[in-house]
């Protein structure tokens, strides 16, 4: 009997809490019916806990607070679920959607539905080719091809011959493109290595065993900041002399570039993608401006090398680069 009463007590308290919450929920929702304030949905293909996408989120939220707009951030790597998140935003009648398209075809229906519902869409990060065709007002990102080719050339400058390209996420078309583009300008051999990006210690172990198996490998190219650190660990543990280069930044990567353990990092400036994505919607909402006039706007590539690492380090510390 005692348990029954405890149970009833919990339900009663929960009930009171819920009623209290519903009051505030109504208040915030009714604060912006006449366009004084905007709500923008940012929907990406990030997995949970990804350092890169946290910077996109920071950028979007910073822009939102600058403009007095509400930002909702959601992410799912599965295109079917990401589509549902887009449908969800449309159902909420948000004032604009920022979306990243790792697998554009998978999002086509939902993005077109959003556009048809009169909601402006800005694509960021990936999906540069399909952006305009799906009705997005602009695209903000880095051309994977342009960036990959630049990396290939940079690797040539460092006179490397046998480089691993480490892919951390099976199924991401953009990552494949990076390796392919880097291979196209790189004069040596480049081999793709598939790793499980959700498990850093395994990434390190896989790189380590690959380096031990083939001592002629003199370079490791990773496609995300945190994997560069795994690669640095793998290189030192296998007593290899391979140089590490990487796409994307983190505070630790910048420190390693400063220290010389990482050769260079390509920064596509995720903070810019989040910030400009929201900015593009805000300018459209308030002033009818289209950034880039519908043409894609490049957020990168910016290279971080030993020369400029100290300056970048300051910003990386804030989690914005």
């Amino acid at each position, binding site marked *: *009997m005692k*348990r*029954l009463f405890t*149970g009833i007590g919990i339900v009663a308290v929960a009930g009171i809490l*819920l009623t209290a*919450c*519903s009051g505030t*929920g*109504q208040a915030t*929702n009714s604060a912006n019916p006449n366009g004084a304030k905007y*709500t923008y949905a940012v929907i990406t293909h990030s997995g*949970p806990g990804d350092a890169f996408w946290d910077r996109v989120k920071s950028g979007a939220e910073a822009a939102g607070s600058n403009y007095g707009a*509400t930002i*909702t*951030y*959601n*992410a799912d*790597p*599965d*295109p*079917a*679920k990401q*589509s*549902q*998140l887009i*449908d*969800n*935003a*449309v*159902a*909420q*009648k948000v004032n604009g959607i920022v979306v990243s398209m790792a*697998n554009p*075809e*998978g*999002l*086509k*229906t939902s993005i077109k*539905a959003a556009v048809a519902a009169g909601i402006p869409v800005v694509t960021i990060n990936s999906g540069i080719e399909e952006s305009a065709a799906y009705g997005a007002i602009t695209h903000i990102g880095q051309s994977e091809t342009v960036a990959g080719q630049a990396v290939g050339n940079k690797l040539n400058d460092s006179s490397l011959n046998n480089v691993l390209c480490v892919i951390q*996420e*099976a*199924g*991401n*078309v953009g990552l*494949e493109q990076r390796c392919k583009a880097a291979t196209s300008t790189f004069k040596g051999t480049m081999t793709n290595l*598939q790793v499980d990006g959700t498990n850093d210690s395994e990434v390190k172990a896989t790189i380590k065993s690959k380096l031990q198996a083939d001592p002629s490998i003199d370079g490791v190219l990773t496609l995300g900041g945190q994997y560069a650190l795994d690669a640095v660990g793998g290189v030192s543990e296998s007593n290899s002399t391979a140089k590490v280069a990487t796409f994307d930044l983190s505070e630790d990567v910048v420190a390693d570039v400063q220290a010389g353990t990482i050769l260079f990092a390509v920064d596509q400036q995720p903070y810019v993608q989040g910030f400009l994505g929201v900015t593009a919607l805000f300018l459209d909402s308030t002033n009818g401006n289209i950034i880039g006039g519908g043409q894609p706007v490049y957020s990168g590539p910016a290279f971080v090398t030993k020369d400029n690492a100290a300056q970048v380090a300051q910003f990386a510390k804030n989690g914005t680069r």
Partner: protein
Amino acid sequence: MTTTDIMTIATRPRVENRPIRRILGRPETGALVAALAVMIFFSVYTTTFLTLPGAGVWLESASTFGIMAVAVALLMIGGEFDLSAGVMTGFTALVVGILTTQFGVNIWVAAIVSLAVALAIGALNGYVVMRTGLPSFIVTLGTFFVLAGADLAVTKLLTGQVAIQGMTKVPFYDSIAAFFGSSLTIGGGVFYISVVWWIVVTIIATWVLLRTRAGNWIFAVGGALNSSRQVGVPVMKTKVGLFMTTSGAAWLVGMISLFRTSTVQANTGVGQEFIYIICAVVGGCLLTGGYGSAVGAALGALIYGMVFQGITFAQWDTNWLRTVLGGMLLLAVFLNHWVRRRATGGSR
């Protein structure tokens, strides 16, 4: 009455004599109460949840989980697990994607080939489990990894990419997409056909469980394997059939996902298998087998879909998404457990 199979003779009359207890004693009652609680909560807390556009979103979200949860519930009532169920949804879609875009096979033929392959893998799972006596947890974990690796390796090898592209250009795409990926707009809300499949699958599964001999066999093999073998229940046939049902449902979900998005990635479905099991358990299935219901599992999936999309409607910081989801699911299970114990376990 689903539960009579495992009830002792002594408890049966007591339960059957009290109509309220009879209702409360059903496995799906807890899930129904929890589903209503979640629905009321988000309807009050957000403005869009209980609109047609809102309902379209969470119903679609719940539907694919629901189809799998119902099949997985049958399997769990039968006393087994299938950890390859998640990756199978991606695998079946990849088979169709590769056969059509790379080899020009007719899309309908490709879908049927995919179903046949899925059923064969399901049968293999069941056969190995029954023949070796190993736990299905281990056997299907093996199948899961084999398929996950094959998905990536074969897709990359044959297409040069890690996702199927250009599905919509395949001849007769529209004719098959109508069955799996079409949608209906009612009052601004988009309702996908997957919701219909979900309901159909739940009805069929419920009918099989409660009205057919096969249904009795399922409860029997899950509740008391040796006794049921001794009284002549075809144990092998039942269990293999259950594994095939699960992989068949995975095929259906694979087709829905493929024709909803017109693409499939090499990693599609990986990790979803636990969500199916969670939905089935929230819906009243016991991890030990012999008890549960198809309607309950469908309600479990409904709870999952409503919470998943409800958090987004509520515009909460989604860094907490999984935590909130986990907390809500635990609450649902507690409520479910409590309701059932009140009904069957005396006054405690």
